């Protein structure tokens, strides 16, 4: 981040993650994404008179799972409070949240800095709360439309200490957090769909100043890229204010992705008095050790553990293991390939090479990849046996199968005439031909110029229209040239 070295930017992040439960935090409405508006509602969601909440067990488990993975203190005793305010997508007129007694305290998430080292970003807390519904302002002219599908969806809010110092660090933290929640099965980390949302608290101060500057909040950033851009733009704006001797107003701001700047939405002074008090409709929680232990015992394998496993079990280099496991789904795909019979290192090469290229070019996730791990493993097998050259497999066959994923790899390879000739009888006449044609080169070879072997291989390849297995050709030539 291009910055004025006289100043330090101080950033804390609040990330809201929608939990991967089937139902809402306090009632049995589905939380599945993409449903028609107001179809995942019940009297509880609608805050009808007389309705009461009942806590989702899975949501509590996922919150604890996240807390354990982030090395937090799990608060054995906690309860929920009501945060009272009026907004049309907040049906009860209050949000039920653990704001006052979070289920997880402290903890940290480790990020890799650009310089290549590691830094622990301290967490302040992780707590459970319910999401609000959605207000849509662009559907009608004079009215706003309220959709309550999302109202009551379970969220965890992950709050850092103001430990971040740059847009790069913000990006690294969000990337790591996203990876972590996906690895844990806590959240699908899909920022575009809103299952992961980020609020930034940012201030600037002169280098060396111990006091924190006035804090500005930028809400609801919906991509890592926008979070990064917002932090860069805001840091510049705040520094400029300070340079010009102007005051920084404590505000809530929104980021306009189109212009790359933020705008004020609300003066913080205007903030509601939320009048928090313990929700009398829920019971307090006294978490038992056995409950927490069972969650700890069933923590899914995290990235670091996978990297070690790939290195130990399959001898993958650190780099390969790390890049593949950066995305849990990619790593899952890779493992399935290996389990289907592909050799680990070639499979890794394929993941890091042709597969990743395709994903990047088409801007897709591995979940959209047309081939199954088993189908791709079959292709690798043919390369391994020498039936195909890597080049033919990774270009022509690969392209064909991506467009016709139902095709059998072996059959397609045949039809495309890609099968290498590795049969000595087929190749022998071609070799004879070449050696006869280049008799003078043969002499050179026998005199010690080993380099011409490549010429012979190339000529055999040409005569076979590229189908000769170069490895086998090489071997046969060596044999012949011995005599």
């Amino acid at each position, binding site marked *: 981040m291009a910055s004025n070295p006289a100043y330090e930017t101080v950033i804390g992040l609040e990330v809201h993650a929608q939990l991967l439960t089937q139902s809402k935090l306090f009632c049995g*409405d589905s939380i599945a994404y993409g449903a028609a508006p107001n179809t995942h509602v019940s009297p509880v969601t609608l805050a009808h008179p007389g309705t009461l909440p009942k806590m989702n067990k899975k949501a509590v488990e996922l919150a604890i799972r996240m807390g354990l993975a982030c090395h937090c203190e799990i608060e054995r005793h906690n309860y929920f409070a009501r945060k009272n305010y009026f907004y049309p997508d907040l049906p009860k007129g209050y949000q039920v949240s653990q704001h006052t007694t979070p289920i997880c305290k402290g903890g940290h998430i480790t990020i890799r800095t650009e310089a290549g080292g590691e830094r622990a970003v301290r967490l302040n807390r992780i707590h459970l709360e319910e999401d609000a519904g959605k207000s849509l302002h662009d559907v009608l002219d004079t*009215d706003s439309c309220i959709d309550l599908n999302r109202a009551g969806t379970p969220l965890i809010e992950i709050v850092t200490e103001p430990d971040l110092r740059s847009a790069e660090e913000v990006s690294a933290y969000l990337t790591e957090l996203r990876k972590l929640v996906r690895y844990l099965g806590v959240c699908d980390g899909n920022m575009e769909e809103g299952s992961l949302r980020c609020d930034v608290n940012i201030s600037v101060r002169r280098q060396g100043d111990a006091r924190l500057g006035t804090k500005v909040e930028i809400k609801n950033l919906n991509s890592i890229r926008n979070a990064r851009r917002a932090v860069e733009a805001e840091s510049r704006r705040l520094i400029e204010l300070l340079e010009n001797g102007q005051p920084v107003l404590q505000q809530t701001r929104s980021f306009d992705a189109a212009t790359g700047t933020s705008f004020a939405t609300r003066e913080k002074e205007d903030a509601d008095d939320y009048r928090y008090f313990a929700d009398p409709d829920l*019971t307090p929680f006294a978490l038992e050790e056995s409950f927490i232990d069972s969650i700890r015992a069933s923590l899914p394998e995290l990235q670091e553990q996978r990297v070690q496993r790939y290195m130990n079990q399959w001898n993958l280099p650190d780099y390969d293991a790390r890049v593949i496991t950066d995305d849990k789904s990619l790593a899952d795909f890779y493992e399935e390939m290996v389990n289907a019979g592909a050799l680990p290192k070639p499979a890794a090469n394929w993941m890091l090479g042709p597969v990743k290229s395709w994903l990047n070019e088409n801007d897709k996730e591995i979940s959209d990849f047309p081939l199954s791990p088993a189908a791709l493993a079959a292709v690798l097998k043919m390369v391994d046996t020498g039936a195909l050259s890597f080049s033919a497999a990774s270009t022509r066959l690969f392209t064909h199968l991506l467009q016709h994923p139902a095709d059998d790899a072996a059959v397609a390879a045949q039809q495309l005439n890609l099968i290498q000739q590795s049969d000595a009888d087929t190749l022998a006449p071609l070799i004879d031909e070449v050696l006869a044609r280049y008799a003078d080169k043969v002499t050179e070879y026998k005199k010690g110029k080993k380099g011409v072997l490549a010429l012979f291989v190339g000529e055999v390849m040409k005569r076979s229209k590229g189908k000769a297995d170069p490895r086998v050709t090489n071997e046969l030539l060596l044999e012949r040239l011995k005599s």
Partner: protein
Amino acid sequence: MEVTEAMIDKLSHLARLRFTADEKGQIRGDLERMIHFVEKLDELDLNGVEPLIFMTDEVNVLREDEVKGSVSRDEALRNAPAHTDTFFTVPKVIKK
């Protein structure tokens, strides 16, 4: 304690209530008397007493994560004072 008009304004905003000038005078008087009434609690020595937060005995009440109990959109909108086929509607809200 004295209840000022500013206090009434602040509280009524928090509670989304509005009082006419006459009503304000009335509610101010009422609230003052009510607060005076509950100030009787100041007489007690409550040092070392823990607040009673929950009336229920029950602890750790949880439900299984199951999808059930939803109603149809029609039912949901049935009682709505203003709505389309799909949404509840309110006067346009300035974006938060």
